[in-house]
């Protein structure tokens, strides 16, 4: 499997999968082939090549819908999770009353926090602990609460043990549930039960950068106003009036990242139960070994994301020392500054794994981590 990912052959020990995954040859070749021999725009041309592109795009839509357990007309192609979440914050908040409120969790990446803050006056924060467990949402829901925006997995703390319970309670209370699956999509199969909208990016799940998916329930998409207006999102345009195309096309204004969509379809082949199991096992090993180092403070409790600090060493210095030995990790606030400030953690190190990592890399990582304080003169 490692041989499918050419970048691994450069010798990098890539522990930064949460920021973006590596890309397999099948994805690289599919996007490359598109530009070499299939390049045409979709839904615009009357010639064969354009029709073939249409077929490929719709085949990708169908495959993704099938993977998620939904219908192709509920799959909108976007440029990434951020675009999907902005479409939702713009469109759903447009339908809120003056005093309606929404709940966003403390765990959110800025991409699932700032759009809501921008579009809604009343944003309440559902708090969490350092282990990633959320407070009970039931205590926050009032008759004015209309939406829950929540990550399926935190990009800092990993799995959220009461995610399912939280969305179930939100749904039962009549809230519209928006799930940011940017992290979760690559590492587990999500059930769409209790989820109205789901957004994710391609590039964190072995697909190309600049492409993503927004899935919405058909009846909700019918009511959702588009964020972008332009070509191919309308059926008719006259002076002073227009008729929107049906979903999903009304949300896909302008030329889409067609090569990206074709590559993304291939990436889904890597989302298998075997791969999910393997990466969880590796992450458990990493977490257990880090926990044995007395000067290491760990955050979160499960999932492929393992965040930590080494006491008295700034995370950027940890990342630099690891970089000298060709390990790539992320260090800092991880685009979740309010979370790390609230938990009084501050910046931290984050190692995030994928199925193509291996035990030997983890062994070396632990050995090196043990030397960091000494290297820093402590």
């Amino acid at each position, binding site marked *: 499997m490692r041989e499918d990912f050419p970048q691994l052959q450069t010798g990098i020990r890539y522990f930064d999968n949460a920021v973006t995954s590596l890309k397999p040859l099948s994805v690289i070749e599919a996007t490359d082939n598109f530009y070499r021999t299939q390049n045409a725009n979709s839904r615009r041309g009357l010639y064969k090549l354009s029709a073939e592109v249409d077929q490929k795009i719709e085949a990708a839509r169908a495959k993704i819908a099938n993977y998620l357990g939904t219908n192709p007309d509920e799959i909108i192609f976007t440029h990434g999770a951020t675009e999907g979440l902005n479409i939702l914050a713009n469109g759903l908040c447009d339908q809120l009353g003056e005093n309606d409120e929404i709940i966003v969790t403390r765990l959110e990446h800025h991409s699932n926090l700032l759009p809501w803050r921008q579009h809604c006056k009343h944003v309440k924060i559902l708090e969490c602990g350092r282990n990633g467990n959320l407070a009970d949402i039931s205590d926050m829901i009032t008759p004015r609460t209309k939406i829950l925006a929540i990550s399926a997995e935190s990009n800092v703390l990993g799995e959220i043990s009461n995610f399912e319970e939280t969305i179930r309670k939100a749904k039962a209370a009549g809230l519209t549930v928006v799930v940011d699956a940017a992290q979760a999509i690559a590492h587990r199969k999500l059930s769409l039960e209790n989820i109205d909208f789901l957004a994710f990016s391609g590039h964190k799940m072995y697909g190309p950068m600049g492409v993503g998916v927004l899935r919405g329930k058909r009846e909700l998409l019918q009511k959702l106003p588009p964020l972008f207006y332009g070509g191919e999102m309308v059926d008719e345009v006259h002076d002073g009036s227009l008729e929107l195309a049906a979903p999903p096309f009304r949300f896909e204004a302008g030329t889409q990242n067609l090569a990206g969509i074709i590559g993304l379809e291939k990436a889904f082949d890597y989302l298998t139960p075997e791969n999910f199991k393997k990466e969880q096992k590796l992450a458990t090993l990493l977490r257990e070994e880090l926990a044995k180092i007395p000067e290491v403070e760990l955050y979160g409790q499960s999932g492929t994301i393992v965040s930590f600090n080494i006491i008295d060493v700034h995370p950027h*210095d940890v990342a630099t020392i690891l970089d*000298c030995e060709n390990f790539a990790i992320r260090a800092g606030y991880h685009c979740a500054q309010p979370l790390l400030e609230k938990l009084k953690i501050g*910046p931290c190190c984050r190692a995030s794994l994928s199925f193509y990592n291996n035990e030997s890399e983890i062994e070396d990582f632990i050995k090196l981590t043990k030397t960091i304080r000494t290297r820093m003169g402590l």
Partner: protein
Amino acid sequence: MNPYNEILLDHSSHPLHRGEVADADIIFEAKNASCGDNIKLYLKLANNKISEVGFTGVGCAVSQASADIMLDSIVGKDYAEAEQACKDFLDYWQSGEGAEKIGEAEAFADIRMMPARAKCVTTVWRSFISRQNA
């Protein structure tokens, strides 16, 4: 390669100039938004020279050492000389040339090869120049 050499570590763990300067004439900040570092720098003037210097704030070892070395290179100088010292360092950072002019700041030679850490080093030096021009 271990970019954390003795000089850098000495300045980060035992900084010469850590702390506020009482009755400082000039206080300015060096912010590195990408990592949340915010270093505050204090200068006191006497006879047109920078007579006392200090800094507060937390950050990585690189930014702390850089603040300490920068302040050490401007203390005792007048503004023009201090600004020149900062420019000499930033020129060295840009080109790799002129190491003979920058004294202990050459301790950042290995970090200079790591573009991801450029801001950790250069922010305080730039902040002095932009303070001058403000």
